[in-house]
């Protein structure tokens, strides 16, 4: 309790200090040095999304006629593109695949990462430091140099064109990252708690599930959110390892199935891009703090 109060006081003091010297700036000065450049950058960063949403509700006639209608706005928006996408293509199926694969491989990797991170930080076995370093190096190996041999490996295991292939392969991207993140969280949990439990006769497994994990919940959420987003975003493995249309994930399906020669494809393409991003943006909106701490945590540790 007093901890929380002290922390609140500290942040207040910090925010006071942060305001620091800004009173020295005049309002026109702030306008030019802060709001103008910030506004411009934000405009560029957000414009593609505005454009995506706008196009997905624009009737076809307005999409290609840029003289009678102002292209930056839409008159009488339509849901036709979204309807076409949901009922005339296999989009719902792709969305489900993406979600299912992302969820399953995230759970698998969190399970593996919790055990690995706990062993490296707390069991301090022989060579723990070295294994920690090796896991970090694994983080630096990009999928772009692995997909060709991986395709042969997956063929060899007989998993080609099955969602299971993706579920088993994605953890190689996620485990290094989550392990590294969770190691940071586990280090902050006091040793004394575990010593007490050991004296009381708890096994290592009990210590992990009853003491360490409940205390590391923020870390687990961060790892989960970030891993889930990475899976959703993954492209090259999903492109290489899945060949049938109904097993594809959203990013691959949009590029390879929805793109055809049609001039009018843009409406449903943009609708597909929008619906594919929406779940992640909503998830992000709920867990901004966890997301940012996952991102910066992985860089800082």
């Amino acid at each position, binding site marked *: 309790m007093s901890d929380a109060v002290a922390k609140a006081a500290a942040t207040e003091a910090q925010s006071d200090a942060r305001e620091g010297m800004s009173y020295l700036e005049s309002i026109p000065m702030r306008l030019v040095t802060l709001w103008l450049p910030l506004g411009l950058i934000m405009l560029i960063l957000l414009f593609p999304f505005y454009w995506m949403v706008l196009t997905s509700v624009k009737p076809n006639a307005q999409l290609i006629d840029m003289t009678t209608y102002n292209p930056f706005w839409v008159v009488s928006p339509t849901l036709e593109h979204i309807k076409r996408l949901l009922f005339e293509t296999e989009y719902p199926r792709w969305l489900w695949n993406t979600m299912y694969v992302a969820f399953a491989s995230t759970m698998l990797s969190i399970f593996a990462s919790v055990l690995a991170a706990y062993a490296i930080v707390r069991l301090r076995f022989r060579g723990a430091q070295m294994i920690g370093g090796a896991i970090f190096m694994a983080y630096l190996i*990009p999928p772009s*140099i692995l997909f*060709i041999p991986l395709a042969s490996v997956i063929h060899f295991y007989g998993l080609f064109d099955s969602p299971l292939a993706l579920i088993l392969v994605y953890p190689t991207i996620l485990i290094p990252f989550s392990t590294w993140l969770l190691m940071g969280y586990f280090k902050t949990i006091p040793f004394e708690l575990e010593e007490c439990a050991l004296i009381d006769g708890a096994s290592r497994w009990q210590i992990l599930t009853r003491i360490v994990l409940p205390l590391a919940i923020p870390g687990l959420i961060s790892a989960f959110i970030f891993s889930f987003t990475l899976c959703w975003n993954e492209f090259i493995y999903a*492109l290489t390892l899945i060949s049938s249309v109904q097993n594809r994930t959203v990013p*691959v399906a949009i590029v390879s199935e929805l793109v055809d020669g049609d001039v009018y494809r843009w409406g449903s393409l943009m609708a597909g891009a929008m619906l594919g991003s929406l779940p992640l943006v909503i998830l992000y909106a709920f867990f901004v703090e966890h*997301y940012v701490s996952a991102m910066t945590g992985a860089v800082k540790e």
Partner: protein
Amino acid sequence: MKELTPWGRLMVNRNWLAIWFMLPAAFFLLMFLAWPLILGVWLSFTDARLARPGVFIGLENYEWLLDDSVFWLSVFNTLLYTIVASIVKFAVGLYLALLLNRHMPFKAIIRSVVLIPFIVPTVLSAIAFWWIYDSQFSIISWSLKQMGLINQNINFLGDGNWARGSLIFANIWRGVPFVAITLLAGLQTVSPSLYEAATLDGASAWQRFRYVTYPLLTPIIAVVMTFSVLFTFTDFQLIWAMTRGGPANATHLMATLSYSRGILSGQLGEGAAIATSMIPFLLAAIMFSWFGLQRRKWQHGENNE
């Protein structure tokens, strides 16, 4: 002291227990990361094709590549893409981080909105860029024409140089939020009293940045840029979604070339050779940013105040 059965020893002894704990992670990393990595290097010395195991042919794949002008073009493109995009991402990202670090209303909301381009799957935002760069209905061409700056639509993705530029811009667009938000986390650990002290000593805004902010930020810059360079160098999705290496191979990166040779044309060996030749570049980039900019003292997180 109670005697332990062999099984009991396996469950309690620290080193044995560690093996149990490491087992799941080791399974994934060895089966699907380490093994393919080794296999990839091996494949690059064979003439393997899709669905046909190859025989060892030594350096033949690499000799082919040395004479292949498309391969060298892809190396040039990859280097250009990585160098230009990384420099701009760093400059704009740092600038945006400095802006976001200032005191302003709605700070939290603005910061979370900035990160959205990084959240949205790359391919999906690339598709949006593809539409923005459309040769006929590009909104950029339209706006420039309305302003009277150009008479004809710009062929963003149809002309080699324009295509390179457009792809680099899209990559920068996606990378800036990551650089900005991670650098912002670094900036927030810099104590404001340092700036006050520097101001009292008569330091200008530039001097405050150069002699206070920058040195304190160097370690985190090193890490962020290592990641940024790595991900830019091995980029695949953005190119594949927008140009697939075209027009006339002008935008092939090493990753996309390796995909189109290895998987689409089925020449696994050659594709693997292209992928393997990325490794030395990657190692060089990692070494450069790690040892060139890193300060050892900070590495363990003790002294980053």
